[in-house]
């Protein structure tokens, strides 16, 4: 049997030493039929029991992106709910209908016509505009400010958005709008403004003022991230532990567990 492969210019035959592969005996040690059968059975069991991996696993987006997206989404939802729930309605649009001509009746004596009554206003309630105005109005209420801040944030105007979040917090510190603004402000400070200490304060205030609130996962995870940015790994580990204990099913929990393992001593 020739074993001289093509296109190897300086090849020399090695048939005396290396020969083409076959299923004959050697160079692997001989194996009894019983052991061969057991090996094949085990391989079959393993191959047929475990599902093959998918061709390519989708990579998770970065944690900060997931947290930011969740925060913006939740904040927007909260602001929308808040706005729809409040009692104050937008100013109605008033349309003046045409005044009908009074009927003219033929009479013997002229009767003076009554003065025309003032027309009743005809009110149409328009639906709320889809996109809020980003223009900041001095008279805006906290929930309007929150919407405007979210819009600024979505445009990447971090400092303007931060200013509005702070106004919301100052206006009604114990309101739901202020709670949302605290978490959003913490996230902005951590991710875009380079103020981890300020972020930590905002997240801690949010957790303290509304424990178990709707943004509790984001606030607690943000707290851990702020500790991480500050280099305080002990506090970060504690915050991650609390976060995982309270929100084990959060989308952020897998990454948090991994980080906690990194922080744990071997």
């Amino acid at each position, binding site marked *: 049997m020739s074993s001289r492969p093509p296109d190897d210019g300086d090849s020399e035959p090695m048939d005396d030493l290396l020969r083409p592969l076959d299923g004959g005996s050697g160079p692997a040690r001989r194996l009894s039929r019983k052991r061969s059968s057991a090996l094949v*059975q085990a391989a079959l069991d393993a191959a047929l029991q475990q599902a093959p991996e998918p061709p390519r696993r989708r990579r998770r987006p970065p944690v900060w992106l997931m947290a930011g997206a969740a925060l913006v989404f939740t904040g927007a939802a909260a602001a929308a709910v808040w706005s729809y729930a409040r009692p104050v309605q937008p100013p109605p649009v008033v349309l003046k209908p045409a005044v009908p001509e009074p009927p003219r009746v033929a009479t013997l004596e002229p009767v003076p016509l009554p003065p025309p009554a003032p027309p009743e206003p005809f009110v149409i309630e328009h639906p709320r505009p889809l996109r809020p105005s980003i223009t900041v109005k001095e008279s805006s209420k906290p929930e309007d400010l929150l919407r405007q801040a979210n819009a600024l944030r979505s445009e990447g105007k971090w400092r303007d958005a931060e200013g509005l979040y702070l106004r919301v917090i100052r206006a009604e510190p114990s309101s739901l709008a202020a709670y949302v603004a605290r978490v959003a402000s913490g996230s902005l400070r951590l991710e875009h403004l380079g103020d981890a200490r300020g972020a930590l304060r905002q997240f801690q205030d949010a957790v303290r003022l509304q424990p178990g609130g709707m943004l509790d996962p984001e606030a607690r995870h943000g707290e851990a991230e702020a500790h991480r940015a500050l280099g305080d790994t002990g506090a970060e580990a504690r915050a991650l532990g609390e976060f995982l204990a309270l929100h084990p099913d959060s989308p952020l929990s897998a990454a948090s567990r991994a980080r906690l393992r990194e922080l744990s001593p071997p």
Partner: protein
Amino acid sequence: MSTDDPIWRRPFSLPGMRSSGSHATVAPRGEDARLTAAMRGQREATESLLLELLPRVRNLVRYLVRGDSDVEDIAQESLIALVRGLPTYRGDGRFHGWVDRVVVRTTFAWLKRSRGREARYSEDPVELLAVPSDEAPADEYLHRRQLVTLLDRLSTEQRHALVLHHVLELSVQEISTELGVPFETVRSRLRLGRTALRALASEDEAPEGESP
């Protein structure tokens, strides 16, 4: 060689990996009902096919790795990869060529994972004299066993180049592609590997006390 995809999902249509013709006992797709049944996932057919392939798989693994201690583990991994890859076999080449490629890649992946601990081998030749063979002449078995003990003393790079070229009959270009190293590097490894292997063989044949 990319390791992003599972071994059994990578394309197997590259040229080369010719079968060792005289020993090829598994026919290409369409000519062998057993292979077709195995590709459809029938356990009995798959088991029969694997039992037939097992000696070839183990031999190739042993050619590629030092020592005997890891051969069964890698062979089993290779069988698993083969079972999972069977449905993707397109039949556009020798079946044995496809099998060899899966085994080579499984072995390389295993070596990559276990880098640094793959030197557990013994040069104890006792079993060479004690193990009979009913499938090949005893001297052939002894020859192959002796040869791999020489291969065990080469560098991994030279060893793999020699095995891919002379045992699997891949061309230099195909080895270059498979290993992801330049063409000239493969040629150099082959040249040095051949020289070293011949020197070791001569040394081994020389009577005790004589230098080759």
